[in-house]
């Protein structure tokens, strides 16, 4: 066991910190700490420009292999990159779905053509992606998807029809990866395909859904015979589930340590409030602040274990299995603590008619952390069945 990083890694830390300090200025100064879950609507145009500035600096895809246009950084270096980015208050990345999910899945499962067509757009920050999994009838039970894809042999393309929902950033993205049924007779995990679909076409309608924050970052997406060229199907028809699951595996990656740095920024903000308004004299608040600090430290140690050990070979160890359940509970409680530290002040919003303060947004948006990406109940099912080997829930038939 060895804590801390090598001197080469620390030199790299200085490099990225230096670059950020030089570039998060001027037109980008005011987007520091903005964006990200709950604040995704903020300064979207500026953050798109920032994504391209990052691309120009060569900071997108740092963990991708070099022959795919990435920089082939070690795990440690990727961790440092994400930590420094969050420490500097780097804005929520508008390209995170492309960089974190689509890129990795195309690198492992995509065709040569798909890699050449789609990776450059992600690396240049010019093409944004969204995730078209959930449907009105397929939430936790994702395999219950009913969106259909029909192959037209004459045109050699697919025609996709269905209704996706909760699609984050669909109103901004150029591309969407869509899980759809290629075999109309199939059910459940069989007969699905994984499609790369262009959003700019008449057959696709995006309707924003207003969230409890009064803002919209997710949408309903209606596909009415949307066209998808045959080379934009990843893998084979019927392989969709396998690919969709492989992609979800990337969600538990190195970026968690960067996410924790963002959490640290939020906790620091709450401590500042507590110092200012005297909440630090309240023994219950003191206990909860300490609890938050303890929880965040242990989240970091859990992530260090995940990254050091068995993750390297791709197998999910126990520390990785609990990661989503752990951080979502912690973060949701942080939002709650923020309100309780503020006390009566917590009520007052930033402006008319309904502009929320950052801590109010934190409180409200963290209610979603325990829902998206697999609800906490689903996480517990998975942990109980896969890590502990407890019997599966019987499925109703009919």
């Amino acid at each position: 066991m060895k804590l801390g990083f090598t001197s080469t890694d620390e030199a790299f830390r200085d490099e990225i910190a230096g670059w950020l300090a030089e570039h998060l200025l001027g037109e980008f100064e005011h987007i520091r700490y903005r964006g990200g879950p709950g604040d995704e609507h903020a300064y979207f145009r500026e953050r798109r420009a920032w994504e391209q500035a990052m691309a120009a600096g060569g900071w997108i895809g740092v963990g991708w292999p070099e022959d795919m246009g990435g920089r082939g950084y070690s795990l440690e270096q990727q961790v440092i990159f994400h930590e420094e980015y969050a420490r500097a208050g780097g804005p929520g990345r508008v390209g995170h779905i492309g960089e974190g999910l689509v890129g990795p899945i195309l690198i492992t499962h995509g065709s040569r053509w798909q890699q050449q067509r789609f990776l450059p757009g992600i690396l240049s920050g010019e093409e944004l992606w969204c995730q078209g999994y959930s449907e009105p009838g397929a939430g936790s039970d994702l395999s219950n998807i009913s969106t259909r894809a029909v192959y037209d042999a004459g045109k050699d393309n697919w025609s996709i029809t269905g209704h996706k929902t909760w699609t984050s950033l669909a109103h901004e993205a150029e591309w969407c990866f869509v899980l759809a049924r290629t075999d109309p007779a199939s059910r459940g995990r069989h007969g699905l395909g994984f499609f790369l679909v262009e959003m700019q076409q008449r057959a696709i309608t995006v309707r924003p859904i207003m969230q409890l924050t009064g803002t919209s970052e997710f949408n309903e997406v209606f596909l009415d015979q949307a066209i998808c060229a045959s080379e934009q199907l990843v893998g084979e028809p019927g392989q969709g589930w396998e690919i969709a699951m492989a992609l979800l595996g990337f969600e538990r990656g190195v970026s968690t340590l960067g996410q924790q740095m963002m959490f640290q920024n939020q906790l620091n903000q709450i401590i500042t409030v507590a110092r200012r308004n005297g909440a630090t004299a309240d023994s219950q608040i003191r206990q909860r602040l300490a609890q938050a600090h303890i929880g965040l430290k242990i989240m970091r140690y859990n992530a260090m274990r995940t990254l050091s050990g068995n993750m390297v070979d791709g197998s999910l160890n126990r520390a990785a299995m609990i990661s989503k359940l752990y951080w979502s509970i912690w973060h949701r409680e942080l939002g709650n603590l923020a309100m309780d530290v503020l006390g009566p002040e917590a009520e007052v919003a930033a402006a008319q008619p309904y502009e929320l303060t950052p801590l109010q947004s934190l409180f409200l948006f963290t209610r979603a952390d325990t829902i998206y990406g697999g609800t906490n109940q689903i996480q517990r099912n998975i942990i109980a069945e896969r890590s502990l080997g407890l019997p599966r829930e019987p499925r109703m038939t009919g």
Partner: protein
Amino acid sequence: MDFSFSENQQIIAESAADYLAKVSGTAAVRAAMETPGGFDVATWQDISSEMCWQLTHIPEAHDGLGLGYVELCILLEQMGRNLLCAPFFSTVCLGVNALLLAGTDEQKHHLLKAVAQDGTRLAMACAGPGRHWGNEAVTVEYETTSSGVLLNGVYAHVIDGQTADYIVLAARRAGTRGNQGIGLFVVAADHAGIQREALPCMDQTRRQARISCTNLELDAEATMRNVGHAGPLLEQVLSLASIGMAAEQLGVAEKVLELTVDYIKERKQFGRPVGSFQALKHKAADMLLQAESARSAVYYAACIADEALRSGPLASELHESASIARAYCSDAAFVNAAEALQMHGGAGFTWDFDVHLYLKRAKASQHYFGDGAWHRERIARILLGETA
């Protein structure tokens, strides 16, 4: 950065698990619980002379093995899992640590050698009666006399105090409070002026004694370093002990999860294993989260303990990491044991099933060296920059 066990550490863990399965299975634990001293003397002799576990983190210069606190915590985790009844924790986590940090060269030379060669048992007496922890809990007072010091007062809950050969005593200069005026002394347990009374304990796997000092006269030989200013040393010893106890608690948190999963896979009601009911599966998943997070907290703190013992760059994190580990592991062990009992149904309430032994150990462990709230308050002071 590498936060995983080395191959050697893996081997230590596996061989400790194998060994303890032999000497500290249920039957052995229950037999030891019935003995007057609370442990099997032959097993202790075997552990101290054959396995030499008490030497793990003692430097080679003092006849130790010169391994680290991580290795020690690996052993303690296994002892917690097996509820080992032995004066190991008191000897090593309290006594040896006190000698390493506060012992004079002579005391180290003499006593660490005795621990190494003869399996000499150590204990540490610190807190007086009442609901206090840390330095504030020290109530026994010392006065300086022409020939040394004179101690008077009572230690309420001395782990393995009844069976120890030597005892480290924490006392304060008469009239001081808090961190002020602390002195540490080490003395043979049968010294005149020391009276020991074994206490009947709810957790029968770990014994306590009440120790009274009545005009206990000690000379320079018994006096440890920085007398009158040993508050920081005592705090360090207690943090090291806390990390060791957190490792035991990790073992408890994991073991009760395993017992429970095995049980609910087998036990059938309503025509199906009760472990297929989501109400139980979700509790089991939460127990896994607690146990895995406890593991991360313990081994991070163990790395920091090594830094502290070797004055490494992260040494200043000792108290923080100890309190993080203890606040988390105290709860994790107790909550997991309590859920384990519930998930065993009526069987969990019986004497014959082992769950109650873990529940009792977990509850007792919450109240040594600071309960969860005490450790969280210590963290709050660090977090808010209120430490002196």
